[in-house]
């Protein structure tokens, strides 16, 4: 019961309510949802049309079309969310500074964590709403078959974890920079590095590791950098129903590029699990960094910054 109350109190944050009310009263809120659903729907319909025109009609054609359309939409959704998250979170704290409301927040009882958490959840709430509104589009694909429920759920989990990590990193930059412009630019650069950069780097490192171990073709193993990438995780979830589990020992071995026989110690982990875990770790670090930055804006208690009392006059 205490845990439930703690969880509820974490969401009983005035900043979440204020930002939520403020955002949803803006014309940008419905426009953003419309734009998102329009793009996703149009993209899904385009893929569907191409698939129908090029498909050979047999008993498995419907399932193949369904699987292809769902996969395309899932990747497109991940890309859209990666673009939306920095836009929503990168100005969250720097915007308070620019609006000259930050000092007033700092003299209130809201803790540094409360400010960072409130800003993150307020930004993510809108993203979650967007993801939620897109569920019927994804559900429509079930009419064709080719996708099972587990794949559907894991797709959403990977997308939400990506949104969370990019949002948290954007909030961190928002606490780091005084202005929203540099915060937004660095947030987009970070989102690009986390989604595209780590995929490219991970692929290159995977080839290097495979070359060193003499593996070729389909036996190339995913490097941990690739393993933690959400695009790769999505690719495995949608392409391989059995997943691609790897021992944690092997991942660590690849991380340090050590030669020798493949380690098989430790539990096995699938790309989506490793990706979600990595993104949660990035989220935790970004929140911690942002909290420390916000705390630094307040006068610290005496034990951290001693005041030397000098005799007046």
């Amino acid at each position: 019961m205490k845990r439930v109350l703690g969880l509820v109190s974490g969401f009983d944050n005035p900043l979440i309510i204020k930002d939520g009310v403020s955002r949803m009263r803006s014309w940008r809120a419905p426009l953003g949802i419309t734009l998102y659903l329009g793009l996703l729907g149009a993209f899904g319909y385009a893929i569907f049309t191409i698939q129908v025109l090029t498909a050979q009609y047999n008993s498995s054609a419907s399932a193949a079309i369904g699987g292809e359309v769902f996969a395309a939409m899932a990747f497109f959704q991940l890309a859209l969310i990666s673009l939306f998250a920095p836009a929503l979170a990168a100005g969250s704290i720097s915007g308070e500074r620019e609006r000259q409301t930050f000092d007033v927040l700092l003299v209130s009882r809201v803790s540094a964590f409360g400010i960072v958490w409130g800003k993150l959840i307020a930004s993510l709430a809108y993203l979650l709403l967007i993801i939620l509104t897109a569920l019927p589009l994804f559900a429509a694909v079930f009419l064709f078959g080719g996708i099972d429920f587990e794949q559907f759920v894991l797709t959403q989990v990977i997308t939400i974890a990506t949104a969370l990590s990019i949002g948290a990193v954007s909030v961190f930059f928002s606490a780091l920079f005084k202005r929203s412009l540099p915060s937004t630019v660095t947030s987009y650069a970070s989102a690009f590095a986390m989604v595209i950069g780590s995929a490219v780097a991970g692929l290159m490192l995977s080839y290097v590791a495979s070359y060193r171990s003499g593996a070729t073709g389909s036996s190339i193993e995913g490097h941990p950098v690739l393993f933690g990438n959400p695009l790769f995780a999505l690719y495995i979830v949608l392409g391989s129903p059995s997943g691609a589990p790897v021992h944690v020992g092997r991942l660590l071995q690849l991380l340090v590029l050590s030669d020798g026989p493949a380690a098989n110690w430790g539990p096995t982990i699938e790309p989506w699990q490793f990706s979600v875990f990595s993104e949660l770790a990035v989220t935790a670090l970004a929140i911690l960094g942002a909290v420390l930055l916000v705390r630094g804006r307040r006068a610290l208690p005496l034990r951290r910054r001693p005041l030397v009392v000098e005799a007046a006059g």
Partner: protein
Amino acid sequence: MISVEALRKRFGRQQALEDVSFSVPKGEIFGFVGPNGAGKTTTIRILATLAPADSGLASIGGIPVGDDPAAVRELVGYMPDFFGVYDRLTASEYLEFYAACHGVARNRRRRVALELLELVDLADRRDTQVDTLSRGMKQRLCLARSLVHDPKVLLLDEPASGLDPRARVEMRELVKELRRMGKTILVSSHILPELEELCTWVGFIDRGRMVAVGPMEQVRNRVVSGRRLRIELVEADEDTMVRAEQALHDREGVLAVDRMGDHFEVTVGDDFEDDELLAHLVHSKLRVKSFSAVAGDLAEAFMRLTGPGEDDLA
């Protein structure tokens, strides 16, 4: 209630505060006066727990700011010199949001917001979006915002800056009302005639140093010797002005006579009888058009204390 002892603060190579000391008794309104960049905002930010001091001791209600900032924040309501408002929130929602930030119980927030809107005369604007309010209304709303947790001390940094005369009068009356409610108020401002009427205590700061501090009358009397009278004659031709100047000089108790174009400003002792001077001018066949005390003694004190060589006065 507010105590500052030997406060020092440096920003890079610039010494922003140099041994600043003053105290404000409970229930008083303290006018914090000084030119731009003198250190007023820095001092207020230290008291509001927004900036650490390099050395010295600042305390509110006996609690050192550096010891327990959270407890100090409970005692203090802070209104910054520049502030913004949130878009798309009504005045009532705005106050309820800050009430929540200050830990006011959920079932009391609405009532607190409405009471404060009533106090600052914005009750009829409770459903108006704050970004559409006039500047004067926003200032009053911000003052109300600083009161949501019923603080004992108010730190108001230039609360009347940029306001039109009517809004300034409203703000001044509001601050007086808050004093009647038992608040201790530190207010910084450049509008000295208003501070003179409003404040019971005053402190002058210049280039990071306190140059005078104490009860208003005491500081004024210490800094400004004598009072000034403005005298204007019906005829301002050269002969009349020369005759008048001579008559004023002849009068005992007149310390100085300054000819200011078409009128005179006369410095007299504190116990000088003004009506006798007026009678003296009439006896000298001079037709007096106006005879009044020059307002702005605080302004004169401010100019004297913050002008060249002010260090000697300190």
